[in-house]
Each structure stands twice: as structure tokens, then as C-alpha cells.
């Protein structure tokens, strides 16, 4: 089953400007981890925002789990798309504890289920002891784990990660990359990971796409590579 399908997607911030995303098409299967590579400003974050429903495309369509979420006629609100996102700077709610941050996305779940899901998620990212801390009491790496757990908790159909390593010390990166891949594979989630670092993609992803600027406008080109293990 195609879990995510994008057809002819075009988007510009203002009408007069060259499109940031131009006639972009792409699809992915359930459980795949796909890397999106590109220099800064090539439209990677914008692509994720379009998938999430935080921006409206000028043209094209997106389907999630074979159901349209945006077409020329239709628009599904972000909260109804079943898309999870780990933001570049994590965006944990500062007025809530780790526990409340994790429970926040468990909307239509029973009380018992919420409890067990919370425990499961904390175990997954190995943060059990930090349940009652506030985000500002955590290190950058810990915040990132919580952000990941928060996004996974509601069991989204697709997980979007925007530059997950940009705020971390580089000497930690290798071990964190491997850990992230193992967490993602353990949950079987379908994931798009955006980065400007080819090493991230090679360590984590099954295949990758690169977005690049061609000419004056930002034109997205596609290049696929199968992960070699």
C-alpha cells in the first residue's frame, strides 16, 4: 500500500515569486524511511509543512493511506491528517511536564490505554525517570527523544522529522543516528527525514531524494538511491 503519495505538487510563498516546490511527485510505502537531502533554502521544510497541512499548495495533490488530504478542491485540517512531526527545535510545550507533553496527542484514547501508551513511549526512548520534569530541565538530546516520543504516541501514519540533528553536538551524532534508526524500525513507522547531511541519510534511511536549486527558481529534482546495508 502507498502510505504517502504526492502528485505534481507546486507551491510558492507569494504569487509573483518563483515556486519553492515545482511539480514535485513522490510516493512511499508503509514502513519505509526516506531521507530528503538538500542545501539550506531548497524547500525541504516547506515540503514537510505541505504534507502536514500547515501550508496549502498552489497545485497538485497529496494522499495519505490512499485518502486525499489535499487536492485542487479539498483540504483536510492538520489535526485530522494523522501526520506526526518532530520539529527542528522540538517545540515541547514549556508549561507542561514530559508526561503531559506525551499525553497531549492521545486524544481519542481511553484512560488505561493512555497510561500504557505513555509507559511504552518512555521506555522506547529510555526516558522513564524523566516523566515529571519540565522541558527546560532536560538536555538537548533528551528533549529530542521526548519530541520523538510525543510525535509517535498517537501512532501517526507518517512521521516527519525536520533536521533532527541540527541542534545536537556532533560527537554524539553517530550513536544517536543508530539509536534513532532502531527506534523507528522497532515501531515500524513510515518516516520522512529531512537533512542537509548525507551521513544522516546513509546511517538511517532506506532511500533518499535530493532537492536542489536549478537556475533562478528552486526546482526540485529527484534522485533515488537504495540503501546499501
Amino acid at each position, binding site marked *: 500500500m502507498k502510505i504517502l503519495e504526492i502528485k505534481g505538487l507546486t507551491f510558492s510563498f507569494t504569487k509573483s515569486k518563483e515556486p519553492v516546490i515545482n511539480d514535485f511527485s513522490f510516493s512511499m510505502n508503509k514502513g519505509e524511511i526516506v531521507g530528503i537531502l538538500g542545501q539550506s533554502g531548497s524547500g525541504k521544510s516547506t515540503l514537510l509543512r505541505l504534507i*502536514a*497541512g500547515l501550508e*496549502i499548495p498552489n497545485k497538485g495533490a497529496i494522499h495519505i493511506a490512499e485518502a486525499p488530504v489535499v487536492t485542487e478542491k479539498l*483540504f483536510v485540517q*492538520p*489535526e485530522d491528517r494523522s501526520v506526526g*512531526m518532530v520539529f527542528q527545535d522540538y*517545540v515541547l*510545550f514549556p*508549561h507542561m511536564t514530559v508526561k503531559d507533553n506525551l499525553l497531549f496527542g492521545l486524544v481519542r484514547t481511553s484512560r488505561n490505554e493512555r497510561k500504557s501508551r505513555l509507559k511504552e513511549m518512555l521506555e522506547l526512548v529510555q526516558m522513564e525517570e524523566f516523566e515529571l520534569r519540565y522541558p527546560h530541565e532536560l538536555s538537548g538530546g533528551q528533549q529530542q527523544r521526548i519530541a520523538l516520543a510525543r510525535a509517535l504516541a498517537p501512532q501517526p501514519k507518517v512521521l516527519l522529522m525536520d533536521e533532527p540533528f541540527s541542534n545536537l553536538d556532533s560527537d554524539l551524532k553517530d550513536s544517536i543516528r543508530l539509536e534513532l534508526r532502531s527506534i523507528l524500525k522497532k515501531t515500524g513507522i513510515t518516516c520522512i527525514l529531512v537533512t542537509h547531511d548525507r551521513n544522516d541519510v546513509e546511517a538511517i534511511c532506506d532511500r533518499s531524494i535530493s532537492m536542489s536549486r536549478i537556475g533562478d527558481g528552486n526546482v526540485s529534482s529527484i534522485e533515488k538511491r537504495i540503501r546499501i546495508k
Partner: protein
Amino acid sequence: MKLESVKRYAKKELNGWWIISLIGAAVILLPILYVFLEIFQEPNENWYQIREYLLGNYVINTIILVFFTGILTIFLGVTLAWLTSAYDFPFRKFFRWGLILPLAIPPYIAAYTYRTMLSYTGIVQSTLRNQWDVQINPELLSFSSLRGAIFVFTIFLFPYVYIIARAFLESQSSSYIENARLLGRKPTAVFFKIVLPLARPAIIGGAGLVIFEVLSDYGVTSYFGIHTITTAIFQTWFGMYDVDTAMRLAAWLMFIIIGVFILERLLRQRKRYHLSNKSKPLVPIKLKGVPAAAAFMFCTIVLSLGFIIPLFQLIAWAGLTFDKVWDISFFTLLTQTVSIAAISTAIIIIVATIIANVCRSKWAFPYILSKVITSGYSIPGAIIAIGVLAVFIQLDETLAPLYSYMGLGDAPLLLSMSIVMLIVGYVIRFMATGYNAVEVGFEKIGTKYTEASRLLGHGITKTFFRVELPLIKGALFSGFILTFVEICKELPLVLLLRPFNFETLATKTFQYAKDEMIHEAAIPSLMIIAISTMSVVVFHLIDKRVKK
């Protein structure tokens, strides 16, 4: 854009929040439009009379007041801002924020306080007479008319210029000033050649606020018997019940306001400096000996005139009339004032929050919307009041058949005699105060928390209550205080829109003063000053937090 994609955009952006915002904007805009539309109506006889015999005089008085107050507040405000930011002298830290305190005393209270103090029986002349046997030519001290009004406006409104100029000097100007100092320029040369031209946009911005206050004033001018366009609006309404002519005067005043507004923009924009945004704070030079004493004295004199002297005089008078004024009816007055201000403020903050939330989305329309709903602030209370009055009278006429159907009698003035009218007036006038505070709160948190919450499955309303509201509640609180204080101080609007026999602290104070019961006015005045001091404190706290 194709119709279908318009519909799709509407689906993304339109919701209950939008609908409330649009209704709010319409309610705010309607009375102001009403005033403008009056220009296209055929004027009546009163208007020709006023235009023939009086209007010239009104306009001249208005111009004199604006001109002299403008010049003097700029002089005082900038001098003090320069002194407290570029020099260090005893008690500088205290004066730095203490010089804002004159804003806590509404000019109409200052007007009657000073006039009485300087009168034949007032403390100044009687002390001179009894202690030193000095008789002063009463002409010299006569404190009324234009001279008195200009003095009062200057001393009690200069903080607007002071605050903005000081913030500018402290944060933006250090590199230029230090360079000039290193080049060996004398302090006066630095002031006139560098500081004044650099700070011009800030100074003009502050002076603009002062001028708007002067143009809106009714309390000071009517107490001193000066005829301006604003007082004329009151006379045509209370003297002749001629709402059309009052609206026509209001439209005239509106044109003057727009003129001032455009002038301010032009003066501000002709020269724009690219100031480095990383500039370090200005390091004050330590003054010693005579200059230090002179700086201290100057600040002390201004603060005494602008706060301490009138405050002590009012306290003394309050002591004389305490038994008489401080009773149950005063308590009623107080609760009445506080509840009407609290209700209006609550409506303002709720509506402002809804509209500010809607205006965070990126398209151009919200920008216009936010400008519309904050427009009330640059419009004098009297103009808004007349517009609201006209709309409510019209509403009552339109609803008359309904009233009689409901058995309320023939054409009663139901809405236009009710407290609803006053609340609507307050909401329109002070929406901007609340809105700006709320907007700052939203700007500080940005949109990322909202987006995170929506991707976790919550709609915008739930996101608002669970994520945004807890994060902006500090901003809402300071917005509430600032707005509440403005409403408690307000005079012209409440005088025009209050129901029969409805009194607030402000109207009661003004009534006492007009009836020459000056001592009785002291207690409600002190109450207003105490409430106003709250906003000075909030200001100070925000300033302190920003510094951290």
C-alpha cells in the same frame, strides 16, 4: 484564483474565530463611519451659526494648545530623557522611572488642583500673605485659560515623549554618541548635533501621543473655559441635543487628527537611520559637584510639580472632607466604576484575543482587520461617543416597532439610555490598548506551538485553551491592567454616553470640580491616581523584565 481554490482556502482559514472577529470589526467601524457619513448630509441651521461665529475661534484655540504643548513637552521630555540616560547623578535610577509618575494624574485633576492652590485663598497666596506678608499681583498667578491649560498638559503629558525618547537613547544611540565624545565634542554639541536629529522619529512619535491627548481633552479645557472643537461637540449635544451638528464637528476634528497623523508620518519617515541592532547600551557619564546637584534639582522640581505637590495637596484636602465624602455612596461609586471598567476590559481582552489569534495567519486581510480594530485609539473619545450615540439612537428608532410590539411603549429610548452604550464606547475607544498587549504575547510565542498542537490532533479552539492561553496569560494580564486603568481615567466619553444619573469616579470628580467643591473632589481623585499608579508599576515591571 479559481472559485474552488478560494473555497479550499476558506476551509483552511475560516472558522468561528473569524466570524466573531468580523462582527467585532464591524461594531468598531460602524460609529466611526457614521461620523464620516455625516459630511454628506445636508447641514442644519445650528451648523451654519457655529461655522459663522464660533468655529474659527475653536480652531485657533485648538491650534494654540497643540502647538505650545507640543513644543514644551518635547523640550521637557527630551531633556529629561537625555539627562537620565547619558549622565549619572544622585537618585538617577529612581528618577528614571519616577518621571513616568505624572502620567498617573489625569490632567483634569491636575487642572483644578493647581488652579485652587494658586487662587486667592489657595495655599500659595495665603502662605505668602500670612507668613511673609507678601501680596502678589493676582494677574501673575492667575491660573486659568490657555496659560494654565498649556502648563497642565506639559507637566502631565511630557512622560509620553520622555519614555519613548529614553528607550531610544538608551538602546540605540551609544555608538554615535561615544564617537562624538571621542571626537572631543562638548556635551551641548553632542546633544544638538547628534542626539536630537537621531532621536527625531522617537521624539515625534511621543509628541504625536501628546497631541492626540490634547485634541481629545475635554476636562481641562472645559474647566478653564477654553472653547475647542471638542468642547463644542459637548455644547451642541448637551445644549441643543443636536446630534447631527455634533457629528459634523466630530468629523472636522477627525480631519485634524488625520492631518496630524499624516504630518507625524511624514516627519518621521523623511530621514531613516540604519541603526545597528547590536548596539550596546549607552554608558552614562558620572556627574560631580554643581552639575550633579543641578541635574538632581531639575528632576526633583519636575517630579514635584508633576506628582508630589498635587498628590500632597489632594491628600490634605481629602483629610478635610473625609467624613463627608467617605460613606456608603462613595463605596457605591467605587464599585460602579470598578465593575463597569472590569466588564468593558474583559470584553476588550476577549475580543482582542480572538482577533489577534485570527490575525496571526499570513494573508493581507488580517493586517487590515487589525488596523481597523485598533483605530479607536487615535480617535478622541468625544468623536467615538458621538458616533456611538448616533448609532444607538438610530437603532432605537429602527427597533421602535419591536419595542411597542413587546409592550414597552411608543418609541422608548431603550438602548440609548442604557449602560450598554457606554460599554460599547469604552470597548471601541480602548480596544487598541488591549489588542497591542495581546498581540505582543502572541508574537512572543510565535506559531510553532500552535502547529505542534494541531499536528497532535487538536483543533484551533482546543489548541487555544490548552497551549496558547497558558503561554500568553502574562501578556493578557498586563493588557488587562493597562486597559482597566485607561477606562477608569477616561472622562469625555463617559460624560457623553453614561445613562442618566450614572456616576463613575471620573465623572464625580469632574462634577465636584465644576461645582467648585474642590475639597470634595480630592478623594475620588486620589482613588483614580491610585488605580493609575498600577499601570505605571506594570510598565516598570515589563521594562525590568525586558532588560533581563
